[in-house]
């Protein structure tokens, strides 16, 4: 089951953000978006989170968080 992730790059990745994105793609990341401030969103194969976390210039790999609103009839929103 593929996993949506948010990857945070280190401060100054070697070769820049574009180079890091390439390396991540080679490793199996399906890129969704690259944000100029050093964040990449995409999808990785199941069970491979630790592999990506261990990569050079990757500060953090996190499973994409979700938000859930209270139902419309709730008094506290």
């Amino acid at each position, binding site marked *: 089951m593929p996993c*949506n992730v*948010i990857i*945070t790059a280190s401060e100054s990745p070697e070769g820049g953000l574009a180079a890091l994105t390439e390396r991540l793609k080679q490793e199996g990341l399906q890129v*969704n*978006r690259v*944000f*100029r*401030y*050093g*964040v990449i*969103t995409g999808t990785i194969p199941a069970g491979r989170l630790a592999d990506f976390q261990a990569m050079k210039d990757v*500060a*953090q790999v*996190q499973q*994409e*968080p*979700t*938000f*859930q*609103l*209270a*139902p*419309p009839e*709730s*008094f*506290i*929103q």
Partner: protein
Amino acid sequence: MQGPDFSHRALPVDELSLLNESEQGAAKRAALPDRPQYTGRYFAVLRQKPSAGSLNRLFEHQAGLRLASTSDFPGSVTEVERADIDALYYERLGVVLLAGQAGQARLLAEATNQVILQPERIFYVPGAAGEPLPEPLVIPATWGLTATGAAASALTGKGVRVAVLDTGFDAGHADFAGRHLVSKSFVPGEPTTQDYHGHGTHCIGTACGRHHGPRTRYGVAGESEIYVGKIFGRGGASAGGWLLDAIDWAVANQCRVISLSLGAPVLPHQGIDRYYELAGQDALAHNCIIVAAAGNDSSRRDDVIAPVSSPANCASILAVAAVDAQYGVADFSGAAINPHQLIDIAAPGVGVYSSWVSAPDQPAYRTISGTSMATPHVAGVLALLWEKFPNFTAAEIVAELRRLARPLPHLLTSDVGAGLVQAP
């Protein structure tokens, strides 16, 4: 001598009636629709209470005017109308009404300096001749707009782009007709930005709503430009990646404020989500300020106090706590439990009335609570600040926001930050 005339025939203005008129009065009179302003009669206002007999001496012997007093006619006005008199003395008021016209007034003016002459004005009911009714002086507003001073502010957020990333917006809501509105959906498979929940419409109402007629005003920045980013799908769920996309869109569209009435619960000792911090820093660098809800996971009456939610817990994002109308912290409002994950400011978040998703031609409203409701108050105030200081940096706007906030000394900084948000 002309007979008594206590009728109400309208007569043209003559020179004497302009005696006491001020410049302002003259300008206003010139602006009025063309209709008679004076009856032609005069009031003689007595400078001091007359001694017994002195009034008779003045009017009858000196000015030759037959004088009677209202106390002589305990019955009806018609008695007065039939009486053979030139002047009627209203004893309790110290005023004499001269029945004749300028001629009689001139006689009196020549006889004494003990009276002030004023022409008798004609009053009209406003709106009777088709001119617009005056605006009510007191416009009812929600307690939140009053407590933040937004109701009294002359600023409207005009020209400021405010993005609200939420469940979308009920663009058909009657209160928003004619508003500048840009919408985009970031929910895969749901291209419409129509609000199916209500949350987004409520938050946009608080931040950007405008006053309409006699209805209670509920919006802070009524002339702001509304950017709707739909990030919640029909089931009320969103994902971090959609939020990042929407933030990027708002920044790219020169929005000055992004309002996030959302949050993921954070545990004690848990760190921040760095990617939100980076997104927040990027926004600030582009003169865009992100505000987010501090979270509703506390239950203070049970001694449960939850840390500030993500993304509000990031330093580059303003975390907004909720207070109630008695300036107490809302039972559910999050607090600065984790180091560096602070509450920045507080805003009205209990019993907040605003727009809700409506049926066509039937605008709806709802009163709900949450740090979700507090957040758009701050977003709206930021829009007012951006309108007031268009050349400030984001950091300067935030500094001013903090400076203006009303301290709540009976409450903790960890609960309310700088205090209750105040509009410029």
